[in-house]
């Protein structure tokens, strides 16, 4: 039975169990996501300031080492089994930043290690993160083309 075509009995059941089901704590989740997401960004800013102060980077070039450092930290936290616990607490707060992307890639790599380096790790590496890359590339292409056409005509 497909989700779209529920029978009257199924509709009735869904309505009936609504009061018995726990309500998702939306407000609390939003607050936790805001705090943890903000904290991750603040740590990123700290790392960025560190590179600007102690190394030969400027505002334009400091982004790359900062992101690389955050990815390294997230990958290590995933390996030590901590990031999934942060994720359960923070929800979107730890998925949306670049650390969430690092976690998606690292966790898939760890999970499929038992099936070997090629068919396990390499094949499954972007199992979760692949969608981000696909939509990132596609939307970048569309936005880029729009900008190009806009400049050509106006």
């Amino acid at each position, binding site marked *: *039975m*497909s*989700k*779209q075509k*529920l*029978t009257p*009995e*199924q*509709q009735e*059941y*869904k309505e*009936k*169990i609504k009061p*018995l*089901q*726990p309500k*998702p704590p939306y407000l609390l*989740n939003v607050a936790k996501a805001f705090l943890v997401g903000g904290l991750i960004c603040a740590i990123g800013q700290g790392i960025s300031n560190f590179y600007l102060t102690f190394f030969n980077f400027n505002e334009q070039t400091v982004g790359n080492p900062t992101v690389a450092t955050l990815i390294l930290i997230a990958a290590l936290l*995933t*390996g030590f*089994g901590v*990031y*999934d*616990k*942060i*994720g*359960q607490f*923070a*929800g*979107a707060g*730890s*998925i949306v930043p670049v650390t*969430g992307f690092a*976690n*998606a890639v*690292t*966790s*898939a790599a*760890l*999970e*499929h290690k*038992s099936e070997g380096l090629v068919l396990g790790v390499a094949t499954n590496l972007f*199992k*979760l993160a692949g969608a981000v890359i696909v939509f990132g590339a596609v939307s970048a292409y569309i936005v880029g083309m729009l900008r190009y056409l806009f400049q050509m005509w106006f």
Partner: protein
Amino acid sequence: MKLTGKQTWTFSKELYIASTGTAVGPEEAAGPLGETYDLTFKELHCGQDNWELAERHLLEQSINICLQKAEKQPEDVDLFLSGDLINQTVIANYTARQNKIPFLGMFGACSTSMETLALGAALIDGGFANHVLTAVSSHNATAERQFRYPTEYGGQKPDTATYTVTGAGASLVGTEPSPIKITSATIGRVMDLGISDPFDMGSAMAPAAADTIATHFNDTGRTPTDYDLIITGDLSSVGTPILKQLLQEKKFDISSNHQDCGLLVYRPDQPVFAGGSGCACSAVVTYGHLLEELRNGKLKKILVVATGALMNPMMIQQKETIPTIAHGVVLEASSKGGHE
């Protein structure tokens, strides 16, 4: 007549559970029933190289313990009925490769525990076997990677989610008298009341449990008060109140004598969301704690209803709803002695 009513089997022979074996992982060992398991592991890998080997080790160990307690060898067993949650039930298949007992692999998702026990009893009753070994397993990490996300993925789960029990339970069924008797079983129908959220199995499976329990009462003419305990497999804190309400609508009141294995297996403060699930959830609680309660006389007659969600991730992604099933087995305390 062995077929009683529409879906209930009443066994004509005296059938007994000769022995059981249970093996569990760390979270279950730390739970309130930690003392009732035969073997506990401190680490989720159970000393093995990967998750699937860990689950297989749990299943093999539970079977070894079960056979040891009954002082039986694999050659003494006529049939091995087993299943698990992993694709093509490979955990059971590869375990059967080792023990060489004639094998029927079974799949009923988390209801496989009672599916194997009911069928095992029926096959002995029908004269097709003298000793049947039934065993099921589940493992939190193998289930996570197959049904959900990689174990270390930081996605947020809702409060309605359940936590797959890491463990395995085995039982040896025969006709030699022991303190635990199997008297009847009710085979369930597949129900689907339109739930499509794989993180809400309790709501999806409650109608199947309600249907099987109501059918059991209608088939046998019994009422909820005929049982000291009606125990469901893994409805969790979400499905339990739904089941009670559904049965109340059918004029069966189980509010005073119902419990759920998924709620017994962990403490509320453990990180298990709405409760435990998985084939092993009903198996380790039944074959450990509940049988002990029957043996020491605290319980006399129980109805164990194992619930299963018969989907896989592909069906969920294709926007299908979740079909579910429940099988019930009646276990009774017997005054006749046995090995244990």
